[in-house]
């Protein structure tokens, strides 16, 4: 810092480029014609009432949605110049790059260390020293290291809910992803743990791109750079967060963010 080098004009780099995405559960059209661009090193919040398709949408980004029987998709989900829907995608590679954190903290019933080391281990990191380093770095990145460094070998299930969720984030970043998907990561947490996760997300966006589904509009307003509003499977509005919450262009967005429904 301090040097007077003119910052180059911000070139907004996108990580995901989604075009005309349709998704059916059996005969039900759950996502309609979604066009969506997700930008690098930003937090993109996805809001909307229950059943609007926001969780479905986030699960298309790492193709976890394909685990649900009867799902069909059309359109394009471009990630790093690859259309996930057309090209034969290596799910292992994709999910290494696009990590995910779930609504309910879901650590494995293993030790704290094993939870974080699990991904890297299976993706080929064998050396103990290297694993130790990854575990420490990941736990430091989620501000959990100081709390657990003395009990790395105890069960992860002994941690509090908030700690477990941070552990899950550590587990996700241990495989060095580019993108972290967060599906309502704080909906099961108390306010203090929620704040911690939010601060963590703000910290993490320096190195990762984050897509966060949230029920909580204040949360979207507090942490995200851009916000997308989904309603009944449609992307109603997508813009800078400040704009969505102060001057939305769609009446339905305004009604939702001002609490008139949802």
């Amino acid at each position, binding site marked *: 810092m301090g040097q007077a080098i003119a910052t180059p004009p911000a070139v907004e780099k996108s990580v995901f480029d989604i075009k005309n995405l349709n998704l059916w559960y059996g005969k039900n059209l759950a996502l309609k014609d979604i066009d969506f661009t997700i930008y690098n090193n930003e937090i993109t919040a996805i809001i909307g009432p229950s059943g609007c398709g926001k969780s479905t949408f986030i699960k298309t980004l*790492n193709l*976890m949605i394909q*685990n649900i*029987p009867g799902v069909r998709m059309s359109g394009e989900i471009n990630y790093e110049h690859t259309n996930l829907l057309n090209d034969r995608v290596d*799910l*292992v*590679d*994709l*999910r*290494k790059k696009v*990590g*995910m954190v*779930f609504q*309910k903290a*879901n*650590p*494995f*019933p293993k030790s704290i260390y094993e939870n974080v080391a*699990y*991904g890297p281990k*299976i*993706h080929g990191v064998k050396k103990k020293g290297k694993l130790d380093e990854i575990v420490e770095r990941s736990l430091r990145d989620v501000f959990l290291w100081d709390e657990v460094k003395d009990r790395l070998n*105890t*069960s992860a*299930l*002994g941690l509090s809910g908030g700690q477990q969720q941070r552990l*899950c984030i550590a*587990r*996700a970043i241990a*495989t060095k992803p580019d993108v972290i998907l967060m599906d309502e990561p704080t909906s099961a947490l108390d306010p203090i743990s929620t704040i911690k996760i939010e601060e963590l997300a703000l910290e993490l966006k320096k190195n990762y791109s984050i897509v966060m589904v949230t029920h909580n509009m204040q949360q979207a307003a507090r942490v995200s750079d851009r916000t997308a509003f989904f309603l009944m499977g449609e992307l109603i509005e997508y813009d800078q967060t400040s704009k969505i919450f102060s001057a939305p262009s769609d009446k339905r967005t305004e009604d939702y963010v001002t609490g008139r429904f949802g």
Partner: protein
Amino acid sequence: MNSKVADRIATTIFYLIAATIVTVLVGLLGYILFHGFSKLNIDFLTSPSSSFRAGGGIGNQLFNSFYILFLTMVFTVPLGLGGGIYMAEYARPGRLTNAIRTCIEVLASLPSIVIGMFGLLMFVNLTGWGYSILGGALALTVFNLPVMVRVCEDALRTVARDQKEASLALGITHWHTIKTVLLPAAFPSILTGAILASGRVFGEAAALLFTAGLTTPTLDFSNWNPFDSTSPLNIFRPAETLAVHIWAVNTQGLIPDVREVADGSSAVLIISVLLFNLLARWIGSVVHKKITASK
């Protein structure tokens, strides 16, 4: 009649039904143990049975029962695990899966005497082995397999979905997820189920009548060469198990102390099955604690 009275009557009826069941069970167990317990001593448990004179034991039968059980589990556990993994993780809902499921259910409800007759055809006559431990163990495998498949499938299905999702979302392949997340988490229930199934196998008689046979050759317990005909380990020798022995002495026994031998054998059988059940619970809870221990 108002609803409070009806509620009280219903409660009383359910208590009565529960009490009846407990009385029957406790009475049965108590009767067998009371009559058999006095017969139990080291000599009875270890000496070979006698054909004509009184005072024979059940040493060989006890050994045969455990040996056949062991072999059965060696066959059943891997097969059952494979089938369970297939049914829980790979089988897609559809006609084929339904057909397989129906087959498993039919197999599970086959009367064991039918399995015995099938065993006689397959493992005794067709193979030309005659009555043998191996034939008995294979018949019991047929008998036990559907139970094991069901146990493994259920155990895998009850592993929390989010554990599996967590693993898949890390880019771990399906097989690796099964191996490193699902199986360890399902292990306590699989183990418990396997031990309970062992109890069922241990007490089975009908499937063994025509496969492992009603006789045991003279065994030399110092001969551990499994290919020798007097070795207890020889899998091609006939072997009367404890449950079969109870049936045999009661229907065709020539010994004067039929009643005592039958009582004693029944007590041993019941105690063994009880032990299997207690063991299953104990090991299940220990392993469960070990895996999920919070401290």
